């Protein structure tokens, strides 16, 4: 947001000059036009050079950030995201776990034209799904994105990026979540009539909980994978799995 403040500063200077001009050089205040003040090489050089310096100062950090955002190497986990009209499909590559994720039932009911259920009564209206994407914290996670029908875009604002999911092409992005919790987002590329109704929910859990969760999913039939597990049960599963690992080590 540094750039916003640079813009604000420039705005203050430019609009300030305009305000002064509008006040000081009013005809009604007896201002007489200085018709010879029509050209100044020095001024023009100045207001070309200064913006160049500001732009260079902006471009440098933007470049470093972009280089970092493009480096998806050394990821510890890869999730394949596929966009469909109108749902997301998640696949934990190499783990044999995959499931679709679509708008939750309450939102879907409330969003109908003439619905009797008010959006205000639905928690996380239009930002809730039946099966969230579960991810571990403190882990570099790589996403590969594609789509099956039209172009979609996967966007969780808290991650700070969106990436198009394009049929026939594979895109890449990555994230590393610090804080456990629920992160919500939406499809960000117009994809047809229900474009506004394919939200994204990411459930970020500790590494242990994630490992336990993933293990549990593998044992489930495909149709049941990804269904939400209450937090306490998840924690218990993590403890149990840790116990088994200790036992196995001994």
């Amino acid at each position: 947001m540094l750039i916003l403040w640079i813009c604000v500063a420039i705005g203050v200077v430019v609009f300030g000059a305009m305000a002064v001009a509008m006040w000081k050089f009013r005809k009604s205040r007896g201002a007489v036009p200085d018709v010879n003040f029509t050209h100044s090489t020095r001024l023009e050089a100045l207001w070309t050079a200064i913006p160049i310096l500001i732009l260079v100062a902006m471009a440098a950090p933007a470049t470093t950030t972009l280089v970092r955002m493009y480096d998806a190497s050394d990821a510890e986990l890869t999730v394949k995201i596929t966009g469909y009209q109108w749902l997301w499909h998640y696949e934990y590559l190499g783990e044999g776990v995959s499931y679709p994720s679509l708008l939750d039932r309450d939102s879907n009911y409330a969003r109908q034209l003439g619905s009797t259920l008010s959006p205000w009564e639905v928690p996380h209206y239009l930002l809730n799904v039946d099966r969230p994407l579960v991810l571990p914290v403190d882990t570099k996670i790589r996403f590969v994105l594609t789509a099956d029908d039209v172009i979609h875009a996967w966007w969780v604002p808290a991650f700070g990026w969106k990436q198009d999911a394009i049929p026939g092409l594979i895109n890449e992005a990555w994230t590393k979540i610090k804080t456990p919790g629920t992160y919500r987002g939406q499809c960000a590329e117009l994809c047809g009539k229900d474009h506004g109704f394919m939200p994204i929910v990411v459930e970020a859990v500790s590494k242990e909980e994630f490992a336990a969760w993933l293990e549990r999913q593998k044992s489930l039939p495909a149709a049941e994978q990804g269904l939400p597990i209450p937090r306490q049960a998840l924690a218990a599963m993590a403890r149990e799995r840790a116990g088994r690992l200790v036992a196995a080590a001994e």
Partner: protein
Amino acid sequence: MATHAAHDVHHHAPSGILRWITTTNHKDIGTLYLVFSLVMFLVGGAMALVIRAELFQPGLQLVHPDFFNQMTTMHALVMIFGAVMPAFVGLANWMIPLQIGAPDMALPRMNNWSFWILPFAFLMLLSTLFMEGGGPAAGWTLYPPLSIQGGNSVAFTIFAIHLMGISSIMGAINIIATILNLRAPGMDLLKMPLFVWTWLITAFLLIAVMPVLAGAVTMLLTDKFFGTSFFNAAGGGDPVMFQHIFWFFGHPEVYIMILPAFGVISEIIPTFSRKPLFGYQAMVYATASIAFLSFIVWAHHMFTVGMPLGGELFFMYATMLIAIPTGVKVFNWVTTMWRGSLTFETPMLFAIGFVILFTIGGFSGLMLAIAPADFQYHDTYFVVAHFHYVLVTGAVFAIMAGVYYWLPKWTGHMYDERLGKWHFWLSTIFVNVLFFPQHFLGLAGMPRRIPDYNTAFADFNMISSIGGFGFGLAQLLFVYVVWKCVRGGVRATDQVWEGARGLEWTVPSPAPHHTFETPPVIDDSKLAHGDVTH
């Protein structure tokens, strides 16, 4: 000007509706363009009000999502191709011959044709709304594969776009031919008013990019109806290729809509500052630089499609460069006002509103140019706010400013200054109520082109909708002011504005049917910028 009057009486044009259908007169055609654009502005505005009404509160109350998508798509197509572009062509038709001392446009019959294509193109485009399956609903950018999922509307839309393109290209050829061939003796290129300059450059942009759009939509057409796979990955094509081609047209198109606006503003600010334009030549070069840069920044509309790092960096740097010539323009306008003698009639108010609000749109544009930040802002309401600041408070405000500025010359009457000022203040207040909160919506995470949203976005959407309806209603006042001025009013002098300079102010008000049948004698000190030494 007795000769003019005598000539007018004897000119053998048909009267009534046939006069308008068969006219080859640049003033008549200019009027046709302007009236057409006003009608389209109201049609496109009505569509925007459908959008804002549906978004007034969360939940779907009025329209189905698919119809909502048709509205966003049509609103954009109608406003861009039906309202803004024809309005500037109308101003060009009226003013370029008057400003360079030409008797008419160079190719008057083609001029007639290029206008009369438009009503048919838009009838066809709008008729799709009433067809089975409805109108185009994939956004005005027509990205495949979504756009070719549509029904027959795809074919109608593409044919309509072809017609609009043909019309624009003919209009552009005419403008270039007029400016390069019909200038009065002594009207050197670097003595031309800036409005003429910006249009000359815009016309070249039009000729360069409209065929590109025609090619892109033709490939869509054959992909849908003739089994080709230009943009179909399963058949060896590439959906992203469409976006590259589209934006190679689309970005210069943005400047096609704003460069003539720069020209209008560069006429008005000196007039009401009673001082020549500051840095005339810098303004011309800045316009040319912007036009050049517009060809090498297209992919900044596509930062999230997965371009290689080098591509992202190139398009980011190139886009940031545009800030420099644009900044030069803003600084020159402000400095033109500096040490002037300012009055604030309606055209000047709109011009000042333009400079401030367009600059705000420029700031958000600069923020969007930063690729890593664009990964967050892209396709959100922040973008919607950005381009409406540059197109509504930019292009549309400049058109309004130009209409108020030249209306007395066209009609021979002064418009109602009090109502004009009301129109300005209502428009300016409501347009900010309408679009400023959309910045916040985008930053808070609301994607664009959605018919319904989470309750967290409710407040700003409601404010924005109120602004939308206020702005829309304020434009009815504009229609009334124009109507009233056409019907009558205080007689305008030839000079109209105390500080006005340039050839258009040497002919009577209203401008007679034929002007400059003998070339005028150019008096350098009376030219718009007055600065011929640099």
